């Protein structure tokens, strides 16, 4: 410690210069971090805007068009992305919320909670391609089913589960015990206490988690590549083997030459996806913010 204090005791120009240099680097790092975001957003908006401004973009699929032929829209991909996301949420959210209830209301502080919590961490680190391969081995290799939109949804469940579970868990932790005790004192059984008191109190946090989870899975591509074939036509059934989605629409058109009409549609799909996913992210933040303001 004495060595440190002797160096600190003599403030010289060298130390000040170093301090200023570091300050410069720290500010520079923020610029470096923000530049890609701005670059991506500006380029996607400027190149994608012409495509999505036409009414056909939102009302037609790509049936009967090719990369060389203008016209058509992204309806098939928009509906596909929304539908796969919705099916994923229907499966994932109940499991995630019940899992969080297990962690906080039933197993808090036990070794079981630590085990489950560790597994949730591992689950949140599983690459999407591995989740996709797992569902492939389960549904296609072992059960002999074909590729389908619902198989992709099941793979996405693995990715959505940890997001929703963690945010629900965090919110349940914040529910004060006095509320639970007040409910018990009124003779309300534990499960009714959880359903009628704890969950409503934590609702905005759970909603935030669900929206963030949806945003994550709607932007995923790898499971869709492996588990469902891209289609240019609108298909609605979740068990269909071909379904268009925005990420796979971008992927299928990524090598289209710049001069062709199909090129513009790729950027249009990218902009539509960004609007959808960023919109969900901002919505989640707004919900979280609104509930925080209410708390004060």
């Amino acid at each position: 410690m004495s060595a440190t204090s002797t160096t600190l005791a003599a403030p010289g120009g060298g130390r000040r210069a170093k301090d200023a240099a570091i300050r410069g680097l720290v500010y520079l790092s923020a610029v470096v971090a923000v530049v890609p975001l701005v670059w991506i957003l500006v380029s996607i908006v400027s190149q994608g805007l012409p495509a999505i401004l036409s009414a056909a973009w939102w009302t037609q699929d790509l049936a009967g068009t090719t990369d060389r032929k203008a016209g058509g829209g992204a309806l098939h991909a928009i509906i596909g992305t929304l539908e796969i996301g919705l099916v994923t949420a229907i499966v994932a959210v109940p499991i995630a919320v019940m899992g969080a209830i297990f962690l906080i209301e039933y197993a808090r502080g036990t070794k079981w909670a630590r085990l489950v919590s560790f597994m949730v961490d591992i689950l949140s680190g599983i690459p999407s391609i591995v989740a996709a391969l797992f569902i492939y081995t389960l549904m296609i290799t072992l059960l002999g089913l074909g590729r389908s939109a619902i198989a992709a949804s099941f793979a996405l469940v693995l990715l959505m589960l940890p997001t929703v579970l963690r945010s629900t868990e965090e919110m349940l932790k914040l529910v004060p015990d006095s509320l639970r005790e007040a409910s018990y004192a009124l003779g309300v059984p534990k499960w009714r206490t959880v359903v009628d008191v704890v969950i409503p109190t934590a609702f905005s946090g759970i909603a935030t988690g669900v929206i963030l989870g949806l945003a994550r899975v709607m932007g995923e591509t790898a499971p869709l590549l492996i588990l469902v074939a891209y289609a240019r036509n609108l298909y609605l059934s979740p068990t269909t083997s071909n379904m268009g989605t925005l990420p796979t629409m971008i992927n299928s058109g990524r090598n289209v030459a710049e001069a062709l009409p199909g090129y513009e549609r790729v950027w249009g799909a990218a902009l539509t996806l960004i609007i959808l996913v960023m919109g969900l992210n901002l919505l989640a933040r707004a919900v979280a913010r609104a509930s925080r303001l209410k708390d004060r």
Partner: protein
Amino acid sequence: MADEPGANVATTTDPEAAVGPSASLSNGKPVSTSNLHFANVKHGGDRSFRAGAIAAAVIVVLLVAFVGVFLAVIATPSLRRDTVNFFTSTQWNVGADAPLQFGIAGLLWTTALTSVVAMLLAVPVAVGTALLVTQYVPGRIGSLIGFVIDLLAAVPSIIFGLWGLKLLGPFLGPFYAWLQHVLGWIPLFSKGVESTGNVLTASIVLAIMILPIVSAMSRDVFSQTPRDHIEAALALGATKWEMIRTAVLPYGQSGVIAASMLGLGRALGETIAVMIILSQTNTPGINISIFAGGETFASKIANNAQEFDSPAKTGAYIAAGLVLFVVTFAVNAIARVVADRRVR
């Protein structure tokens, strides 16, 4: 906050509460019977709800276990029939007509190189932004900067891929040519692929993708630096940087390491951005240059997703997926252990 849920308790639980104790008291019946009745209701609902919660937890645990088990089971027959060493070979011939030859050495190299370079690029920037937000600017501006950086996490990976392929790669082309001209005598910077779809472009894009994760976690730990440590350093006459070096960085060190590991895990498994950007090469062996093309575990699997036609072939790709799973599992587990140690 207390008002609303409080009202909630009253309205939603009133009926049950009324049937319970109060009814029994007014009727003068023995409390024990009503208690018994009440206990029964509680028991049934509670038991099934509890079972539901436990079932959800079991599903989570089994899912993780099953991922490993299923991949291993399906990969085993192909691994048995593999005629080259799985870990050291760079061959990948999984067609039906020839004997199976597949090895992951090339995939392992490209995966590790892209991810490690991405981490080396991302961590200094992430730490810099975290220091800026927590130590240099007022809270309100800090949270605004944090918000903008977090938005990067909301960009889908296919968009990063598209941007890297069409815009970033071509933009960096002249810089790559210069770098190769100056440093080309080092094997790591030797000649690679003609296109800009090389390891370095993939690494830069991966770095941008993991930046928000590492930055957010670093911000969390830096903002928890004890006030006393900061003030003690400043009272000794430390400059801002000296204060950060002696108080903030030592305190946040393990948190930053954990965050970097999480970022590394994410980079190792990133699929679509890498698949789009990285040029595939047909040259055998490993080109260790950062200007080389190649394939990672994830991009190899995704590139061939439509060719899973025979069990033997599928098994080879699933074996690659299994290795990726084990590696990311290990990296994430280490991150978790490091982060836990910090809390204690």
